Every structure is written in structure tokens, then in C-alpha cells.
């Protein structure tokens, strides 16, 4: 009982907890970032203001570059932004030079091009070697965006300066760039629950539930082989006269166990995960389809377990092969990490994993409010897998059983 029910419950809870952090993207994670402000001017002020408004970055001010580098290298901070001395001044000069040359090109202003080579403004970002690449890209992107925004504002100011030159009656206006456009983010589909996304619980509960269901092969194969070795299966054959009732009986029992496992772990996702500080599992409103999908996964898992049970001659062979194969199927099926983050070849292989079919169906039902038409192809695959493995197990059992 502990093996079949309690261990899978522990598995799904632990995996959801372990993978909670990796599943949260940078928008939910707070990073400690050092700012070495050698500029002490507009540019650095704008950077401080932008990060100050961010809930994902905790900015810590230091004055010494060497100290900043050391503390990032040690992992105390994830990154350090070093704004060089006179960065604002140089950016301003570059902007002025650009505008002056544009005006001069059109015969306005002084009419002479300024060809002075101005040094590039090098803003350095030092990263903790262990930081994820997407965090690096995100931080660098934010800095570039801030600098571009500052430069745009200064371009407009310089334009006004040049145009105002000689026109003392006109006053410069303050241009607010923040209202020019905005990016609206929302999830596709009309009936999606607000705020539902693929989080640790939403991924791990159905994923590891299926993993546990496929591990039904452990008690199934172990019991089956034990009965075969002990001779009790011979008695069943003598009474029933056929392989089918024996196989069907075991199939029915373990199928039911799988369904109970599913229901228990879904209940954990809904009622227990929030108590642990995790998200609550969102099920959507397709209870019937969810149960149908769970039934198809249970059939596939039981069929596979039956095949393992009848094919291998000893429990050691069956359980070794069975457990490793389930781990492989789960890995390529997107149980460990979502399929879309895997390399291309694994994404192709995932098309052949029954766990991928099941997980995709659950995601369709939980997150995308899919209909029967959407999940039907995967359900057919799962049922087909169950039919093939179940039929093969009857055939092999009959062929192999002399007594």
C-alpha cells in the first residue's frame, strides 16, 4: 500500500517543491545586483530609477569595482553593473554630435560636420558564472533599453536645443516617451483562468502522476512473475482454461489502482500544495474529459506493465528493464522538463512516448480548456498503446506457457 500510494504522493510533492524555483521565470525571482556608479550623473540615475521600480532586481550600491567583481565571483551577488566615469557626459556629447551633424548635413546649424572621434561608452555587466543564460540576457536587455531610452530623450532635447538656437521665444517641451506605446500581455483563449500558467505544480502534478502510474509495473510484474514461479498461476489456468481471464483480471485490478493513484495525486495538487506555499493545481472545468484521459493513461500504464510481466522470465529482469524504461519514457515524455525546452531530437522522440501524449492532454485540459476533439488524437494513441501491449501480453503469455 505504501509503495503504490504513499511513495507516489511523496514523489509528486518533492518534485513540485524542487522544481518550483526553476519554473518561476525572472519576473518572479528576485536577483541581488550590484551597481558600481562611477558616473554619478543622469545615466546612472536613470538606471537606478528603473531598477528601483523593478520587483525582480534588488540593487545594491558599491563604490569599488574590485570589490564588486569579487562578490559576484563568489556568488554573493548574481551580477554587477559598472557604469564608468563620465558615462553620462560622453553619452550627451555623442548625442550632441549626432544632432549637430544631422543638422549640418541638411545645411542647418553651423553647417560643419563634427568628425571628432568620441570614445564608446562601455557599461560593463559582470555575471556570476552560475547564473542562467536567460537571466544574463534579461539584465543586459534591461540596461540596453534604459540607455536607449535615455539617449532617445537626449536626442529629442538636443533637437530642441538646435531648433531653439536663435529662436528665443519658443520654449522647450518635456516629451514623455512612456505613453508612446505599451505592450499588452495576456494569455490566448477566451475562457482561460486569469493568472494560470505552467508553474511547478501545474507541470509536476500531472507529470509525476503519470510517472507513478507507469510504475504500476513494479507490483504488477513482480506479483505476476511470483505467481508464475510459485505455481499458483497454473491453478488459475487449470480452472479457467484460458489466458484471457487471468490477464484480464489482473489488468482490471491494476487499472483501478492506477485510477486511484491519479485521483489521490490530483487531490494533493488541489488541497496540499497550497499548504506548502505552492500554487494550487488548476483543473479547469472538463472533469469528464480529465477522467477519460486518466483512464486512457491508466490503461496504457497497465498494458505496459502486463507486457513487461509476461515477457521477462525473472523478476530481476522485469523490474530492472521496466523501471529504466519508465524513466526513459518519462524523460522524453516531458515529465522532467517540458518538451518545448528540450533539444530537437528529443522533441521528436517525445512524439512516441505515452507519457507525452498524456501530459499534453492534461495540459490541454487544465490550461487551454480543450475540447474532446483536441485531446482525442492523444487519447486514441494511449488506448491504442494499451490495446497493443495488452494483446501482446496475452499472445506472449499463451505462447510461452506450456504448463
Amino acid at each position, binding site marked *: 500500500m505504501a509503495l503504490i500510494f504513499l511513495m507516489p504522493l511523496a514523489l509528486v510533492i518533492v518534485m513540485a517543491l524542487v522544481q518550483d524555483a526553476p519554473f518561476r521565470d525572472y519576473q518572479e525571482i528576485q536577483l541581488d545586483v550590484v551597481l558600481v556608479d562611477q558616473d554619478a550623473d543622469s545615466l546612472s540615475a536613470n538606471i537606478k530609477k528603473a531598477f528601483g521600480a523593478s520587483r525582480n532586481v534588488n540593487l545594491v550600491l558599491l563604490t569599488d569595482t574590485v570589490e564588486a567583481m569579487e562578490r559576484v565571483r563568489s556568488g554573493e551577488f548574481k551580477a554587477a553593473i559598472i557604469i564608468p566615469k563620465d558615462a553620462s557626459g560622453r553619452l550627451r556629447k555623442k548625442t550632441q554630435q549626432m544632432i549637430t551633424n544631422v543638422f549640418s548635413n541638411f545645411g542647418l546649424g553651423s553647417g560643419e560636420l563634427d568628425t571628432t572621434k568620441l570614445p564608446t561608452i562601455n557599461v560593463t555587466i559582470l555575471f556570476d558564472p552560475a547564473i542562467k543564460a536567460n537571466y544574463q540576457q534579461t539584465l543586459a536587455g534591461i540596461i540596453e533599453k534604459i540607455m536607449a531610452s535615455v539617449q532617445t530623450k537626449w536626442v529629442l532635447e538636443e533637437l530642441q536645443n538646435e531648433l531653439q538656437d536663435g529662436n528665443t521665444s519658443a520654449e522647450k517641451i518635456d516629451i514623455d516617451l512612456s505613453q508612446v506605446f505599451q505592450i499588452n500581455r495576456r494569455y490566448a483563449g477566451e475562457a482561460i483562468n486569469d493568472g494560470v500558467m505552467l508553474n511547478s505544480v501545474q507541470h509536476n502534478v500531472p507529470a509525476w502522476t503519470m510517472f507513478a502510474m507507469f510504475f504500476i509495473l513494479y507490483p504488477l510484474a513482480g506479483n505476476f512473475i511470483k505467481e508464475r514461479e*510459485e505455481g499458483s498461476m*497454473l491453478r488459475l489456468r*487449470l480452472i479457467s482454461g484460458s489466458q484471457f481471464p487471468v490477464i484480464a483480471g489482473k489488468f482490471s485490478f491494476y487499472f483501478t489502482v492506477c485510477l486511484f493513484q491519479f485521483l489521490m495525486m490530483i487531490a494533493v495538487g488541489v488541497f496540499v500544495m497550497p499548504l506548502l506555499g505552492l500554487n494550487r493545481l488548476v483543473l479547469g472545468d472538463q472533469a469528464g474529459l480529465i477522467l477519460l484521459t486518466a483512464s486512457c493513461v491508466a490503461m496504457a500504464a497497465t498494458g505496459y506493465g502486463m507486457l513487461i510481466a509476461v515477457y521477462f522470465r525473472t523478476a530481476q529482469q522485469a523490474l530492472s528493464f521496466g523501471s529504466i524504461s519508465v524513466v526513459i519514457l518519462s524523460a522524453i515524455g516531458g515529465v522532467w522538463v517540458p518538451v518545448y525546452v528540450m533539444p530537437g531530437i528529443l522533441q521528436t522522440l517525445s512524439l512516441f512516448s505515452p507519457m507525452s501524449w498524456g501530459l499534453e492532454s492534461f495540459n490541454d485540459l487544465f490550461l487551454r480548456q480543450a475540447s474532446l476533439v483536441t485531446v482525442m488524437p492523444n487519447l486514441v494513441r494511449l488506448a491504442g498503446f494499451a490495446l497493443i501491449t495488452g494483446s501482446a501480453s496475452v499472445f506472449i503469455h499463451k505462447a510461452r506457457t506450456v*504448463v
Partner: protein
Amino acid sequence: MSSIVVHLDHLTKQYNKSVIPAVSDLSLEIPEGSVFGLLGPNGAGKSTTVMMVCGLMVPDSGFVTVLGENMVTNGLEVRNKIGVAPQEIALFPGLTAFENLFYFGRMYGLPTRVIKSQIEKHLATFGLSDKAGKIVSTFSGGMKRRLNLIAALLHKPRLIILDEPTAGVDVQSRSMVLSFLENLKSEGTTVIYSSHLLEEAERICSHVGIIDEGRLLTAGTLAAVAGSHPDCKNLEELFLKLTGKNIRD
């Protein structure tokens, strides 16, 4: 004249990787009410023949008819009328004696009342009444063998097939089993008794059939078979005369 319960007609069975057939053109008839001793040395084809009679194995050629039904095509029809005590102990070692028998009784489709009464009766007959609640894995070899036999009797079969029913059991258990079989004989139940223990066969069998290398060497009533070889003092001498003295592994 008694009817024929088992009719084997030119049975042949060859295992895939074997050069010679396990059973070769075997024909015999077992009359109702007889205790038929199927005798032969190791590897003679006794167990293969028994499996074909039980319906566990399909012959390559020939027919097996039990209680008027072809075992290949209509085996399920007579399944409930045959009781088999195989050579290996076919019980659930983790269950008690009662649980084993009750489970098998339910699989035979017997009502609970009948199962319980049969269990009580047979456990008493075989001296296992006080062991009903004990786990089978704790039983001695003799106890397991007796329980194995009881499992074949629950549903009051018309034909009982026993494959080495006294193999590896103690003297007392053996005596109990043989006494039971003698009673069965007097009740008119048909029994196929497969063994290579000739003195047991001589004691309880009314008919014998001796096979070797898959072929039937002789068959008939004990008296008729003995009478056809008057030079043999007993069944053992007759057996050795027909099968030879070479050791079979």
C-alpha cells in the same frame, strides 16, 4: 458396459526444439469409474499426455475427447467437470489454506455455502482441519501436497487427474492420499493417476497404460496387462521388461 470418459485418438505432440516427439501416435480409452494408472519412466511423455487431457496443451495431431467433448474446441465446456492436481504445488503460498480453497471454489463458480462445506469436509478427510487458518508457506511438503489435491476436488469433478500426487511426501501423507483414492474408486469417480511409483499403481489402479518415448506400450485392466506377460511376477517386473533397465534422465 461403462462409458468412455477419456478418449485419446492418435495423439502426437513434439516440442519445438526436440528431435523426437514427446507423444507419438498415442491412442487409449479410459472407462468411467476406473482408476487409470498412466505409467512410464522419466521423459516418457506422461506429463505431456496429462496436459493435453487437461486442455493446457494443444496436440500437434490427433484428438482428445473428455466426457464427450473435444478438449481443443470445447475444452471450456468440460473444465468444471475435471479436477487436476498437478505435479507442482499450485497454491498461493501467502494465503491460508482456507483462503486458497475458497478462492479456487469461487473461480469454479460454486456458491459460498457449497464451498465452505466442501472445504470443511476435505480438510477433515486429509487431516488439515486445524490448519485451515495457517499460511500455506508454513506447511510441510506433505501438507501442501494434500491441500493441492483438495483444490482439485472442491467442485466434485467427474474426472480427477493426479500427476505424481505422492511425490516427495511423508509416509503418513502418502498413506492418506492412497486411502482416499481407494475410496474414490469405490464411489465410481474416474481417476487418471500418473506416476512412476509402481507399487502405488498396483495397489489402487484398476487399469494401467505404460508409455515410453511417447508411445503406448500396453494398456488395459491390471489383470489383462499382467495376464499378457505371465512371466512377470508383478507390475514392476512387467514395467522393466517393457521399458528396459536403462536409467532415464
